[in-house]
């Protein structure tokens, strides 16, 4: 395949997200302006100007009308996807790390980093269908018992009943999204040993995949939080993705960004690694980035995927035919 290289960011990529129809690709980076691209040919549709810090995460509503972004400028913003206009700004007292719309787009979960004397927290906001009615009030605030350690990802569980969070303390927690009660924590002995960098749900939400700096990715059952599979690799995992079409998972990573300039490029292993989801066996790797992969996303049709790297490039890969009949 010949990937499409998209250079819309000046700084390392942080997050990639397809909309539900798979025709738009949203990209966030440490520069302050998220971009939106046409996912078929990589043409840039627009930019969302307004943040004043690194943008860590974004999510797009099911009908592709609203975008929510979380940024290190201590705010999360709602945007009109089509025009690029800011619709609303949620202000916090610490950087926001992770954002996600609930099923139905009526709620959003936003996580904030520990900052000064503040501990990390998970906020649930109500999203009004009419932006004029939008309020900044949090429906629920979860204080997370992990001290100074960040929450890197928080997502909605099935039917919006739960919130799943994971972060630097390497523990996956499931919270009740109504009461804010901690329902489950993963078993210490089967969990990750280092920071969990990414968490992605399967298309049906029945299981999810976490990637960690302990050089592994793990597949978990959403309801019971039991470990299903473990995928081991040779370098820290920064990003994970799951194919909606085939039983494939993709791990992206590479050595820590701070070590990139001091070590050999061959040692970096800056490739997106494909694993068989069930057999846990490595299928192959897609190379190309000059730095660690920070973000991965699969097109909802499963026929293309994109990766964003520390090198500031997004690489959009449309699979060749032979990918779809790969046998192990």
């Amino acid at each position, binding site marked *: *395949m*010949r*990937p*499409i*290289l*998209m*250079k*819309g960011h000046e700084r390392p990529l942080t997050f990639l997200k397809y909309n539900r*129809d*798979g*025709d*738009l690709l949203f990209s966030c980076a440490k520069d302050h*302006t998220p*971009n939106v*691209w*046409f996912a078929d*040919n*990589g*043409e*840039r*549709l*627009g*930019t*969302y*100007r307004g943040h004043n810090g690194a943008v860590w995460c974004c999510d797009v509503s099911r*009908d*592709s009308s609203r975008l929510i972004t979380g940024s290190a400028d201590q705010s999360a913003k709602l945007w009109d996807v*089509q*025009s*690029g206009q800011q619709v609303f700004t949620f202000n916090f007292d610490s950087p926001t790390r992770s954002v996600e719309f609930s099923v139905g787009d009526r709620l959003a979960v936003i996580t904030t980093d520990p900052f000064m004397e503040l501990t990390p927290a998970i906020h649930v906001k109500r999203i009004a269908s009419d932006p004029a009615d939008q309020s900044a009030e949090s429906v629920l605030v979860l204080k997370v018992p992990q001290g100074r350690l960040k929450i890197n990802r928080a997502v909605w569980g099935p039917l919006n009943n739960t919130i799943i969070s994971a972060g630097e303390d390497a523990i996956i927690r499931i919270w009740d999204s109504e009461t804010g009660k901690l329902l489950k924590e993963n078993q210490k002995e089967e969990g990750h040993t280092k920071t969990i960098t990414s968490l992605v749900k399967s298309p049906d939400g029945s299981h999810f995949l976490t990637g960690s700096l302990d050089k592994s990715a793990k597949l978990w059952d959403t309801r019971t939080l039991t470990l299903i599979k473990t995928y081991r690799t040779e370098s820290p995992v920064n990003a994970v993705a799951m194919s909606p079409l085939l039983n494939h998972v993709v791990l992206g990573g590479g050595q820590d960004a701070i070590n990139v300039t001091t*070590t*050999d490029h*061959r*040692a970096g292993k800056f*490739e997106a690694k*494909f694993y068989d989801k069930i057999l846990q066996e*490595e*299928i*192959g*790797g*897609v*190379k*190309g980035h000059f730095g660690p992969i920070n973000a991965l996303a699969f097109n909802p049709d499963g026929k293309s995927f994109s990766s964003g790297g520390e090198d500031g490039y997004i*690489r959009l*890969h449309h699979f*060749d035919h032979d*990918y779809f009949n*790969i*046998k*192990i």
Partner: protein
Amino acid sequence: MKAGTVNEAKLRWAELDDDDGEDLDFLLPPKEVIGPDENGIKKVIEYKFNEQGNKVKITRTVQTRKLAKARLSKKAVERRSWAKFGEAVNGNVGDSRTVVSTEEIKLERRNGPGSKPVAPNPLAPKGVTTIKCRVCEGDHWSSSCPHKDLLLRHMEASEVPISDTQTPGTSKKTYVPPGLRPGADKTDMRPRRDENSVRVTNLSEDTREPDLLELFRPFGDVSRVYVALDKETQVSRGFGFVNFVRREDAQRAINKLNGYGYDNLILSVEWATPRPN
């Protein structure tokens, strides 16, 4: 055909002999397409020469379906025509924001059917070969040897200038390490540890020193095991050295393990240095 076109006028008998049939297509009436009608049915009328050189009219009735459109949702089609905004407005055409990679990137298979091992040359007679690698003495060219970095190292070692005749340091006031000073005893500065040393090549990447020790231990007392690692990647470079306390043990190990299948690879075991005779 009689309607004397320009093309026909150009036609010469010599050309007719040269290229048979295919290039005469310009003599045919143009392709006609009727439709598609509301059911997506269209008629395509084509003319071509058959093997006998006769003109044949082919009429095909085709139903066309718009697959590409059907796959995109209505909303997505609508979004396609959205106006650009933000920084994407000015000069997105022709700028280099979006480039198709010139490089063909493959999903590199780790193992299994996708990764093809290098096929041995079927023409080469088995067992008899005139090609001999200077590094590992296998039947391939030295330049394509998997251990050619060994050779480079050998060459580097032999290229170190021997400065015995000259006495640097006496003419210029530069520091000369004691080992290089005239009269220094070079023999036992660092005792070379290659007595009864056995070189093992074609090791798999996963082989570590303990594995090698385990493999060679049964032949006798081993004084040293070394696996060469890449400085930067810490990945095994595929060769190593084993020192035996007794020479007979080393010889037995060579006899036994040379050509031994270990971890899917055929080991090559030999004396590390040519024995002085």
